[in-house]
């Protein structure tokens, strides 16, 4: 029932505009893969191409090694959950789920059995006779998933399915989706612009930007070793700190020097780097707040964000550059204080002019 999906050199144009440029990707069977990227990066288009709702201009898409991009959407053996759910408003939940099975001429008793089973999995037996209009947002979402499950598809496609839910429900549904994947052991492709959804759900994340795939990797790979400056900035909240830097490559590990003389000793191998301008990057949790004068740099606190388990400190360096650091939840630091910032060299990143990234040696 489950299947792998291969996308080979796929491109897509709308008129003169290129939406996807020579994209290749292999999705393993039973994998939960997330397409992550800002709006307009082509992630939804790619999903709709797999579904058959958009044309593939060049390249091929195959499921289990069989080309499917010439097949109509219904014949591809996939199911899709739309952002708006697209439930048939005049049909009961049961009829919504039965419609696709009736269309392939499945016998009634088999349809009923499938609906019963799916309703049980999703704990919505009591909703079967209702119309979508009588359901809450979360229930509708569940029905949309149910409509996909009954088809027992080779793969599930989700197009930002959580974006219409409120925050609390979104978190809960996220967990349920993860459990569902565990249980069905089915290939799932999930499109989102929300990095938290991507991090929590994905086996692998495909970060997309500007017609291209920026990086494919497990959530922790994406987070710890972002392949490009775009990925580093897009994933993680607050966004990674970026500072323009010159590189001192004289010793084994490179040292980053900021404009006003601040130096950070990284654990990035000098001999891997090349000549040119760099951007130094570091996440807020890797910038510790220390007494003034004891860190790599000193700054004046602009803003404090108390998150409970930690405190985000927005400090301004002498040249006006803002750096977000992190302190204990019960931090005593106050706005206007002068604090020291200690950068963790092992967690430092460097980005070249093309956006390419260098990371610390792996231990």
């Amino acid at each position: 029932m489950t299947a792998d999906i291969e996308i080979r050199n796929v491109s897509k144009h709308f008129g003169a505009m290129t939406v996807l440029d020579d994209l290749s990707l292999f999705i393993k069977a039973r994998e939960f893969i997330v397409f992550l990227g800002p709006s307009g990066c082509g992630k939804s288009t790619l999903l709709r191409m797999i579904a058959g709702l958009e044309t593939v201009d060049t390249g091929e898409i195959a499921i289990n090694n069989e080309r499917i991009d010439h097949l109509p959407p219904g014949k591809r053996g996939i199911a899709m959950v739309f952002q708006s759910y697209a439930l048939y408003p005049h049909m009961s939940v049961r009829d919504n789920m039965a419609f696709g099975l009736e269309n392939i001429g499945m016998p009634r008793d088999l349809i009923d059995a499938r609906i019963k089973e799916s309703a049980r999995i999703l704990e919505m037996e009591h909703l079967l006779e209702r119309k979508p209009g009588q359901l809450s947002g979360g229930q509708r979402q569940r029905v949309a998933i149910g409509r996909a499950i009954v088809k027992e598809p080779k793969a599930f496609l989700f197009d930002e399915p959580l974006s219409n839910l409120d925050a609390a429900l979104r978190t809960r549904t996220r967990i349920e989706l993860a459990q569902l994947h565990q249980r069905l052991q089915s290939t799932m492709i999930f499109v989102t612009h929300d990095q938290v959804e991507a991090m929590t759900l994905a086996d692998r994340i495909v970060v997309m930007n500007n017609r291209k795939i920026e990086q494919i990797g497990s959530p922790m790979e994406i987070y710890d070793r972002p392949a490009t400056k775009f990925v580093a900035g897009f994933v993680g909240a607050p966004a990674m700190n970026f500072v323009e830097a010159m590189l001192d490559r004289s010793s084994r590990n490179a040292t980053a020097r900021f404009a006003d003389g601040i130096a950070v000793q990284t654990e990035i191998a000098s001999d891997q780097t090349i000549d040119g301008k760099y951007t130094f990057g570091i996440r807020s949790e890797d910038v510790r707040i220390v007494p003034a004068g004891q860190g790599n740099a000193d700054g004046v606190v602009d803003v404090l964000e108390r998150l409970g388990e930690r405190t985000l400190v927005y400090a301004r360096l002498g040249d006006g550059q803002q750096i977000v650091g992190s302190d204990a939840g019960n931090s005593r630091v106050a706005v206007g204080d002068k604090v020291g910032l200690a950068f963790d060299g092992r967690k430092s990143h460097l980005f070249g002019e093309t956006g390419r990234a260098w990371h610390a040696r792996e231990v």
Partner: protein
Amino acid sequence: MRAPAISIKGRAFGDRVLLALVILLSLVMVAPVLWVIGLSLKENAELMANPNSVFHAPYTLKNYVNTIGTSSVFVWVFNSIIVSGGLTLGTLILSSLAGYGFARLNFPGRNVLFVIVLFGLAVPEQAVLVARHQIFSMLNFHNTYHGLILPGLSASFGVFLMTQYFKAIPKELDEAAMLDNASRFRTFWKVLLPLTVPAQATLGIFTFLGAWNDYLWPLISATKKDMYTLTVGMASTQTNFAQSEGIGFLMAQAVFAGAPILIVYLFFQKYIVTAVSGAAVR
């Protein structure tokens, strides 16, 4: 305008003047109808002697009894029901299919064809009347039901209305149906058409009313008395106004013909108003 939050003397006076004007206008609306109803309840001889007799008894239902007993009004009502009903049904079918086609499907020449259909909105009946009459003469369509129904089927308004309505339905529903293996026709029939019921009601009532009240085409196409529609039939009796049968009888016929449509109006008011407003916001 909103009711004023604070009552100021000048405003109250202005309100009263406006109210008086509106009441005067509504009297102008109602009085002629009441007059007709009054006349229909009187003996002819008494009316001729003194029209003021309308305001007092004796009243009689004799004119209504005569209407039901003698006039061809039932035949005409029957004809009108066949013609209006047939045209309404036909319009709903053609407009729904074409509306879905134009709103959702792609076929060679679609946009050009839609513009031509829109152009049809600007063609008045009178511009095609003469030629249509000649064509129908050649086909021997005059004095038949299809001769009365067919011209109305060429009206673009329904297609325009349904196209707009189909366009307002989210496209994801079609795509979901496509992923559910439904054919184009099944998507139309099972998924989208049930969602257009409000538009169907609006268009249906609009078409029915228009056909019921149509005068010009039935006048020139249905020339035999037993093929008259109610509108034409009623008009034909007006020629012997106030003479042979008497005013009361004519008025009873008018009430008899007008009351049902007014009752229908009161029932379907909401849809009629939507249809009327929708017709102009095109």
